[in-house]
């Protein structure tokens, strides 16, 4: 049986897991942006592992007192996970500040110890309550397939809470993150904000572990933010883009975790299920890789473009000076196509204006270097060779004004007049 993408939103079995994992990834990718800006992405790693004992304790306690009531169990797990991640936050803070343990060692210690305690408690019910143990294991790598509408509602409300807080406090968050002194001076309580953001981080982690899992949660926190960061420098755009990427990877992670086992199914062999978490993270990482490729690609294109422009301008300059040039076929074609040279490769009026501007910039810069920076006359040529391609018209105007529109350059060659 094959499913189309729309089936995942309409089919009663798939609807809840799809929407649920999308909401969870949305929440975590929004908070993740703040984590990246603060450069505390490894704190996310520690807190997500520290939520594991909370999951275990919450699940065992609630299942013990209220057996078979899925709604209460879900809330119990959330509450437990939130409590232990807050406890971990407190311990890390104390270790770093009070006992002067280095930050990385404190994070590592807390994450592995909390996780170990979680495993210890979970192993208590391994033989006695196999059903609970199985449920606990799902939180390691996430399994959204067992989500129900009631869970989605809970997670949806929490997500809305996080988004609403972002909207309400956007200005203050911006101020605190980029200029602590300024925000202190306008009366924002910085410490309160920092603590609130760490609490929100813990909350987002607790929301996310159901579909992404404890082990990979930290990756999912930062991956959408990193991806979005390649395209923008503005916080607001970053948040929107990162949330969008989170939504997409939540959907496709869930989609592939259903589709791939179906495709790999072989007659006569037992079915297997892929955990959702790794698939979501892999998809987000794939998007990151694409964004890196785009970023590198645009940087490379800009380099090539600049080199091409340099060659072009150098060729024009040589023609202006009536020197012989060796131009490649493509360069000659381009010069002709732009209308800078005619059929016999003589400069047209437009070409002449362009070339004389380049020469003017070169010689102006030489004058500036000698007069204002005290460079030796014989040394300035090489630097001017590079600068002539970079100086903007505004800069040219300023230079002309500063140097009092000189007639001769340091080598006693005439500087062409400014042409319009």
């Amino acid at each position, binding site marked *: 049986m094959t499913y189309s993408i729309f089936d995942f939103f309409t089919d009663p079995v798939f609807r809840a897991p799809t929407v649920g994992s999308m909401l969870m990834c949305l929440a975590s990718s929004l908070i993740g942006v703040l984590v*990246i800006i603060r*450069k505390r*992405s*490894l704190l*996310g*790693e520690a807190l997500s*592992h520290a939520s594991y004992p909370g999951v275990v304790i919450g699940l065992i306690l609630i299942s013990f007192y209220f057996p078979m009531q899925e709604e209460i169990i879900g809330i119990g797990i959330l509450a437990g996970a939130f409590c232990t991640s807050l406890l971990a936050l407190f311990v890390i803070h104390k270790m770093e500040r009070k*006992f002067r*343990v*280095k930050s*990385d*060692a404190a*994070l*590592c*210690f807390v*994450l*592995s*110890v909390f*996780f*170990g*305690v*979680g*495993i*210890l*408690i*979970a*192993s208590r019910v*391994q*033989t*006695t309550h196999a059903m609970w143990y199985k449920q606990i294991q799902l939180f*390691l*790598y996430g399994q959204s397939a067992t989500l129900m509408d009631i869970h989605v509602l809970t997670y949806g409300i929490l997500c809305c809470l996080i988004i609403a807080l972002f909207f309400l406090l956007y200005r203050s968050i911006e101020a605190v993150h980029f200029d602590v002194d300024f925000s202190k001076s306008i009366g924002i309580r910085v410490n309160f904000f920092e603590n609130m953001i760490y609490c929100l981080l813990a909350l987002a982690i607790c929301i996310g572990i159901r579909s992404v899992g404890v*082990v*990979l949660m*930290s*990756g*999912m926190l*930062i*991956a959408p*933010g*990193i991806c979005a*960061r*390649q395209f923008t420098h503005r916080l607001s755009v970053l948040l929107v883009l990162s949330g969008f990427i989170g939504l997409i990877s939540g959907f496709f992670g869930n989609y592939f975790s259903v589709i*791939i086992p179906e495709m*790999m199914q072989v007659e006569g*062999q*037992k079915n*297997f*299920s*892929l*955990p959702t*978490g*790794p*698939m979501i*993270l*892999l998809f987000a*990482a794939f998007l990151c890789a694409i964004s*890196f490729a785009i*970023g*590198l690609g645009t940087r490379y294109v800009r380099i090539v473009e600049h080199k091409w422009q340099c060659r072009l301008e150098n060729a024009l300059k040589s023609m202006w000076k009536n020197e012989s040039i060796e131009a490649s076929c493509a360069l000659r074609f381009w010069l002709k196509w732009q209308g800078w040279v005619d059929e016999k490769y003589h400069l047209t009026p437009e070409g002449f204006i362009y070339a004389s501007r380049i020469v003017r910039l070169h010689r102006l810069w030489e004058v500036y270097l000698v007069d204002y920076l005290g460079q030796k006359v014989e040394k300035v040529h090489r630097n001017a060779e590079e600068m002539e391609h970079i100086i903007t018209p505004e800069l040219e105007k300023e230079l002309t004004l500063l140097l009092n529109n000189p007639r001769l350059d340091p080598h006693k060659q005439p500087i062409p007049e400014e042409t319009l």
Partner: protein
Amino acid sequence: MNPYWDKNFFQVFMIFFQRMVQGFPNMASDEVQILVLSLVAVSTGLLGVFLVLKKMTMLANSLSHTILLGIVLAFVFLGAQVLNFEVLFVAAFISALVTTLLTQFLTHTIRLQEDASIGLVFTSLFALGVVCVTALTRSSHIGIEAVMGNVDALHITDLKLIGIIACINIGVFTLFFKEFQLTTFDSVLAKVLGISPTLFNYLIMILVAMTSIGAFRAVGVLLVLAFLVGPALTARLLTNRLKPLLFLACAIGIFSSLCGVALSRHILSTWHISLSTAGLIVTLIALVYGLTLVYTLRKRSGTHAGTGTKEEKV
């Protein structure tokens, strides 16, 4: 018949030392566990001290995750049916290399901040490893065991593997002790003397990857971090000198492993509850750290009080 059957905490120790004198005839599973975990503790104790001093523990975190992918890749490409030592060494080497190169690529070429690139690389590689393992073995069992460890499934071949790894660790650290000391505390002087800090950082990373592979079956990729960091931090509270630091870290690790195995046997005998031994040991490591912390804090406040009275007398 397991000689430790139905024995309590102290009897386990007595029987263990009695049988140690006899040279462990028909090695029982508890003995394998104790020996494997002690060897793990020795390797990680040595490494952990340097990692903590060099502030490289998060790198250990990422390496211990990516070895899963390394093992899978070695398994697929070398087509080994039995994971013997050479294959695992290649796996460690691959994973250390891939992780480092990718992280460096992201930080230098893409100009991503360092913590984010570490976080992204190791979680993605680990996710890839988990997906590959799940798809290849058609069960999610190994993926779960990778993070939890399974001490009960240890076999005598694991003992050989971790034995070799521990020997390599001890050998490297005794051979290059001076170099490691120098690069850790004064990298500038080390460079002047012609010892490359980068080279020794890479050496440490390969050792970490290897040790994680040795500890992989026993304690899993996450709890090995507690073995690395916990004893080193505890020893750091007690001494400032490097050699005592190394010995103390190893001793604390071995002590926790011994007590952990004995305690898990004790709980099984008296209350018939089987607890995860790895989880128990990690909890013990944390407890030892907590107690040492309280002890040093009290001692420190005691000396403060002492100086206070002296000043009053003056």
